[in-house]
């Protein structure tokens, strides 16, 4: 809004905008002052917008971008995408791993999730109804460029079974590629990446050699059979995924859904509280007590006190005494509260 437009707005509207912007001293300002204060706050934001359009101009060339999380098996599928896939330097075979599957591990899966819940509490200031923004900010979100006009493919390891890749190919490269159809061509070479093993190493060094059975014991004591909890869950999901759902091969369908356990049981609830508000007025310089305790009066001689009201009987003698102590008035309400559930 321009300052001119602001001046034609109603004062109440301006006050609300000012409150949103956190302009100090707004309640004491007149309309014109409010308008100019708001205009001043709005300026830096406009500057930002200008910056954005400049950048948009820079990146308007059409490009092709994408991203995808894929299991190792998808390496072959990546080829038709015409991005030269980087090597997935996996040391082990695909999902099905040889060797003993370590049993007795599923029971414990919940505590890692719990850790996340606790860590999440750190960022908790309010319990927002889903989807509602939690901040008082009014700045509209600006968007990042959709592409950077470069040929690039990057592989990122997600876990022992999955690698995530994003890529971008410029229009020029696509044309060039089409022109040289049939030849070997590369637009971009990815970084090299290695997925981690999901079991202990089979390499033992001479100096620290111990028998296998003894290592198994230490492995167990280290929590090895349940560390796997993470890996084992993954393994199961992976096997399930490879068994069926991912065969469509549509980009994006490889991504697994977020951890289970979010589905909440029906939890209808109702809370009720009762409070009692006692309020009144007397001479501004009088002394007032409620149940024998002094009450602070407002400058105009009024007062308001609120109490949590438990079940039972409350006798609330209120006494006002004139400043010179000559006059004294007592009023005693009695409240009886009963709750039926």
């Amino acid at each position: 809004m321009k300052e001119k437009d602001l001046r034609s707005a109603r004062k109440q509207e301006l006050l609300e905008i000012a409150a949103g912007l956190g302009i100090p001293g707004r309640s004491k300002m007149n309309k014109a002052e409010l308008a100019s204060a708001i205009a001043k706050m709005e300026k830096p934001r406009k500057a930002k917008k200008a910056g954005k359009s400049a950048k948009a101009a820079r990146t308007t060339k059409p490009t092709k971008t994408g991203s995808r999380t894929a299991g190792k098996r998808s390496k072959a599928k990546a080829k038709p995408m015409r991005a030269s896939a980087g090597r997935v330097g996996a040391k082990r075979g695909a999902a099905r791993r040889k060797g003993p599957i370590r049993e007795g591990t599923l029971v414990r899966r919940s505590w890692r999730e719990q850790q996340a819940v606790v860590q999440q509490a750190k960022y908790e200031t309010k319990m927002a109804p889903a989807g509602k923004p939690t901040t008082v900010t009014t700045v509209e979100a600006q968007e990042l460029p959709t592409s950077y006009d470069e040929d690039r493919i990057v592989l990122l390891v997600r876990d022992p079974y999955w690698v995530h890749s994003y890529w971008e190919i410029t229009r020029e490269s696509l044309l060039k590629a089409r022109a040289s159809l049939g030849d070997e061509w590369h637009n971009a070479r990815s970084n090299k990446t290695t997925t981690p093993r999901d079991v202990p190493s089979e390499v033992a060094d001479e100096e620290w050699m111990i028998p296998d059975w003894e290592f198994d014991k230490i492995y167990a004591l280290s929590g090895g059979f349940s560390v796997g909890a993470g890996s084992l869950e993954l393994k199961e999901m992976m096997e399930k995924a490879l068994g069926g759902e991912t065969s469509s091969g549509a980009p994006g369908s490889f991504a697994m859904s977020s951890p289970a356990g979010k589905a909440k049981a029906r939890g209808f609830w109702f809370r009720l509280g009762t409070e009692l508000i006692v309020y009144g007025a007397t001479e501004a310089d009088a002394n007032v007590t409620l149940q024998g305790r002094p009450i602070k009066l407002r400058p105009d001689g009024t007062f308001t006190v609120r109490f949590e009201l438990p079940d039972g009987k409350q006798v609330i003698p209120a006494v006002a005494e004139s400043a010179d102590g000559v006059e004294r008035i007592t009023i005693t309400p009695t409240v009886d509260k009963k709750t039926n559930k």
Partner: protein
Amino acid sequence: MSKPKGYLSLVLHAHLPFVRHPEYAEFLEEDWLFQAITETYIPLLNLFEKLEDESVPYKITMSLSPTVVSMLNDWMLQERCVRRLEKLTELAAREVERTRWDPRFNKLALMYHYFFENTRKTYVDKYRRDLVSAFRKLGDAGNVEITTCAATHGFLPLMSVNKNAVWAQVETACRYHERNFGRRPKGIWLPECAYTPGLDEVLKRAGIRFFFTDTHGVLNASPRPRYGIFAPIYCPSGVAAFGRDMESSRQVWSANEGYPGDPWYRDFYRDIGFELDLDYVRPYLHGGVNRVHTGIKYYRITGPGDDKQPYDPDVALDKAASHAGNFMFNRERQIEHLNGILGREPIVVAPYDAELFGHWWFEGPQWLEFLIRKTAFDQNVFRLTTPTEYLSMHPKNQIATPSLSSWGYKGYNEVWLEGSNDWIYRHLHWAADKMVELANRGDRSSPIVNRAIKQAARELMLAQSSDWAFIMKTGTAVPYAVKRTKEHLLRFMRLYDEIRRGAIDMEWLSDVENKDNVFPELDYSVYADKVYAGERL
């Protein structure tokens, strides 16, 4: 005391992302810091100082992330923290009045009133708002080993396509640590405990001697570790890796078996900010609209279901004592057993989020105090130690390369790389490459260009905080996390553009310098290639 059979190393990792909004009179997410100061940092400082005063033998490791240190140093946030504490003290006083007829709640209102008032006094009068110096003093006294973390808690394995960016996070953190604590850090808490092979080379260059991984990081190391996770291993670079102990983690973190879930402990969610009449609590909410945590919570966990009983601090204190006793007993048995099998003194590493203690688990600091005192006086099986102390006692350890791992759900990178947040990486990686380009060009002759490049480095680092990806996946403040990521990237892009065109908007530059003022002495040349020539990550 006779020679112990083994060691327990408690590690508390304190971290919050950089949240500071001078453009608003008050800002909801700044509460993260104020709550951590009130409920965690000050209670922990009080605890450690009490132990020092009484000469209780103890050792503990505390990692303070550079963003936390930076915010603790910021005068504007300090001022706002004092305001918040004053407000809460006022609210608690009104609560004392309001609950007069209900002694169950009145007792708690009095407790909170004392807590807030006392915290404010401690913060203002005792520490003069300077908690960093208080931690520094404890570090100097020798019982608390203070370690660092990556500069803005960037998730390093997913950053490592640009090795300079990883180096910049680590080296900036070490320099900031030195400035604040008087010496370079010996240890680092890798953000989210996330390690990827080769990362230790970077740490080595920064002079770091040890870091922590999750259990499987060490356990799946190659060659396989002779002592499991009960001894550190040296990476090929010579930096030591300590693996997290599952058992002690589970006892504290787990929902079912963990201590913090005890029915007698205070319930985190039932806060009067959400429960009482809106008109009454409005003056203590942000902008008078958003219901928020005030920190005044009257109920105990009680059990599943919504029907909660009032909290009883005395019973809860007894519980904290018995849980500490149980934890100690379990460590005694564990360490005795391990000692027999391993033939050397094991180290059990138990790392936790510092904010777990006090903020989430209200009785956490009490539990910790009981645990430390009991360990010192009630048993002879194990002693508390720090990684540095353990390495000096046991300098000979196996050489092995840890496995890629993190302490997130499922143990790898998925939490920070999945459907809700994977879009950030192409932008972060692009920006990191451009940052290296800027640092390589760095024009020392132009102060304005230098300022702009320095600010670009700050914006990149702030965008890299792993917190944003974490919140996008799990949190309640998703729009804020998205906004922060975009905002810093957009600021970076504009700076990059202006620097290249030689047209720096001075007014705007000053504005963002004032907003994103993290690491005042940041040296952007840490991004330059010459600093990192020839090294491979």
